[in-house]
């Protein structure tokens, strides 16, 4: 899967930036439209152009979690908006009115802001990801951003970078000095779901092969079963994913695994219907959650999380598993404890991020025993 925009639309002001040079070299022959200024909101676009602009907002943001559910406290480094993979459930199709992928070319300003943030923020540990508003690695072969970010984080004592992707674009990571401070993460789903709902994303085989390669290069890995989708054979489907996951990678090198069932703002429903008329993801019953998003009924969520937890712990009881945006009662029922009992979810993941504590003692600390989880 390689991304080829129909045209490039570039703001003249950033014509000389290294990012623009990299992209023009990588997409040689692609028509270029130079413009004075691109507006934020361009609803009439087709989604087939790659826009490169000077970003004037904040590059580092906190994850837009809500107080009603346990948030992981992740921070976002925003180098671009939108995604061209075309997953049916993707929030970005409603979040950004402009369907075109957009990259921010003032990378020097981004790196400066990031450095200041890490120096000045009172947080002891920073978990920073680039996969919130776009896919972290989809365009990495063109932007070569990993060549800048991975060595930068290698030098940070208090921060890790999480590159979250549904692609297999990891080639550039091979030779980089990561210093154990970059975690490469994949969103996983059964092949049946990938084929039907995840558009141009890489296959499960390709993602796991890319993960295996990254592990070979010494990177720690993370996996996100998010969104978990309920469909007639979800048990078997996710069972197969877990089997294939651990056939591909060593569980000891996994920083964390998140579980999160499908959830979305009600306004996304119309966009999903319009953009993906054949999708079946809206067939299950949904109820409004405490944050206003539609979610599976809690009993089904608990059932899915419990099933996945059991599958994962059968393979590796040292795994750090967490639920994304879930309430304490669901945590307790599915995993047997609430994050607050262990200092809060951000604290659990912060420790895990820097490898401060030994996994085995942590799991024992959380109170899991073999018999409890089988």
């Amino acid at each position, binding site marked *: 899967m390689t991304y080829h925009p129909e045209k490039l639309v570039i703001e003249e002001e950033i014509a000389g930036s290294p990012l623009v040079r990299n992209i023009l070299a990588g997409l040689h022959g692609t028509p270029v439209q130079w413009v004075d200024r691109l507006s934020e909101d361009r609803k009439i676009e087709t989604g087939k152009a790659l826009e490169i602009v000077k970003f004037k907002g904040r590059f580092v943001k906190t994850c837009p979690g809500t107080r009603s559910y346990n948030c992981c406290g992740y921070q976002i480094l925003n180098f671009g908006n939108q995604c061209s993979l075309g997953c049916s459930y993707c929030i970005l199709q409603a979040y950004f009115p402009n369907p075109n992928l957009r990259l921010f070319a003032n990378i020097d300003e981004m790196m400066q802001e990031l450095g200041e943030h890490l120096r000045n923020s009172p947080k002891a540990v920073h978990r920073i990801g680039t996969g919130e508003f776009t896919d972290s690695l989809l365009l990495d072969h063109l932007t070569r951003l990993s060549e800048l970010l991975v060595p930068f984080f290698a030098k940070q004592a208090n921060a890790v970078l999480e590159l979250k992707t549904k692609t297999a674009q990891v080639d550039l990571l091979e030779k980089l000095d990561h210093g154990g401070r970059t975690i490469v993460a994949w969103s996983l789903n059964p092949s049946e779901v990938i084929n039907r709902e995840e558009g141009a994303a890489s296959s499960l085989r390709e993602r796991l092969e890319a993960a295996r390669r990254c592990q070979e290069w010494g990177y720690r890995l993370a996996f996100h079963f998010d969104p978990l989708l309920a469909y*007639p054979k979800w048990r078997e489907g996710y069972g197969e994913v877990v089997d294939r996951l651990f056939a591909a990678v060593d569980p000891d090198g996994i920083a964390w695994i998140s579980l999160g069932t499908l959830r979305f703002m009600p306004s996304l429903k119309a966009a999903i219907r319009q953009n993906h008329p054949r999708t079946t993801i809206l067939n299950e019953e949904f109820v*409004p959650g405490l944050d206003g998003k539609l979610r599976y009924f809690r009993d089904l969520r608990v059932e899915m999380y419990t099933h996945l937890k059991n599958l994962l712990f059968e393979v590796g009881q040292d795994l750090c598993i967490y639920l994304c945006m879930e309430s304490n009662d669901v945590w307790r029922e599915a995993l047997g404890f609430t994050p607050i009992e262990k200092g809060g979810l951000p604290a659990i993941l912060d420790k895990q991020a820097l490898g401060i504590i030994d996994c085995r003692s942590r799991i024992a600390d959380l109170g899991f025993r073999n018999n409890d989880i089988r």
Partner: protein
Amino acid sequence: MVETESCSIQLSKVDWDDTSCLITYGPLPDKLLLSIQTVGLIEPPLLQGKQSGLFRIVCGSRRLAACKKIGLDSLTCRVLPNSTEHQRCLRLAIYDNVAQRTLNPVEKSLVLAKMAAYIKEPQLIDEFMPLLDLEPSITLFNRYLGLSDLGEVILDSLAAGILNERIAFALARQKEADRLAYLRLFQELPFSVSVQEEIVETVEEIARKENLTPKQVLTSKELRALRQTAKGPPRQRAQEVRKHLQVRRNPRLTARRERFAREARALALPSGVRLLPPPYFEGPKWILECAFERAEELANQLRRVAQMADLPEFQQIMEGKSDISPREVGN
């Protein structure tokens, strides 16, 4: 100023099949017939001569139809030169109509669809949507254009105000047989517009999940029984139909609610005390409601509830164990 010539036109020379400037939709008003019969035609229609020797109707199609119905052979009309551009004629028809009355949704759709042949979307949205008292948005514009796919029965209902345009927009994405099935239900039982919208969405989702057509859902044995029963007033039957659809769409939630009701009854809380689960059983906060007249009564209620709270049955009520077999999950 529009340059026209006043002429007496034989009604047989009017090209009734040329509807290119026609934006009027709906039945001929009885009062128009009465007016022409009583005082004659006050405002002459506007026509345009054609190469064929016939005349295209630009403004006044209803007046002309009324005169024809009354049996007039000819009448005085204003006639535009043959050379007048068609877009100009269409604009005359539109502005003449909106100056006199509020157009119905079908007519608004006709205006946008016909002008779309001449001007680009942004200009059309900026100029004509406010003229039609519509919010100038591309989404609404597309919804109005979509109305042209609806069949005559639905359009007639829409023009007559029997069907709300919000429902028509929702029906535009359906097949004609399904639309008619919805229309029959909405004509049969009194639902508010928002409930009609909810029903269209719910039925559509049930149909997708159960691999049926909306018509098959709406004419299922259970729904037919609820609709046709003579028991209860129409409003009550409407509520039962709505509830039936919600239960069918949300089997897990329904099962949990039924289980909760069953277990709460079995718990036999003190009189005046109610246990309320969180909305949709989402979130940790349950509510205990006590109705009492004296402090002593409240103290008694609370003592008994405190004892009950330690019972396994009370704990079990708050747990969310699935009542649905795994096979029922998904589509």
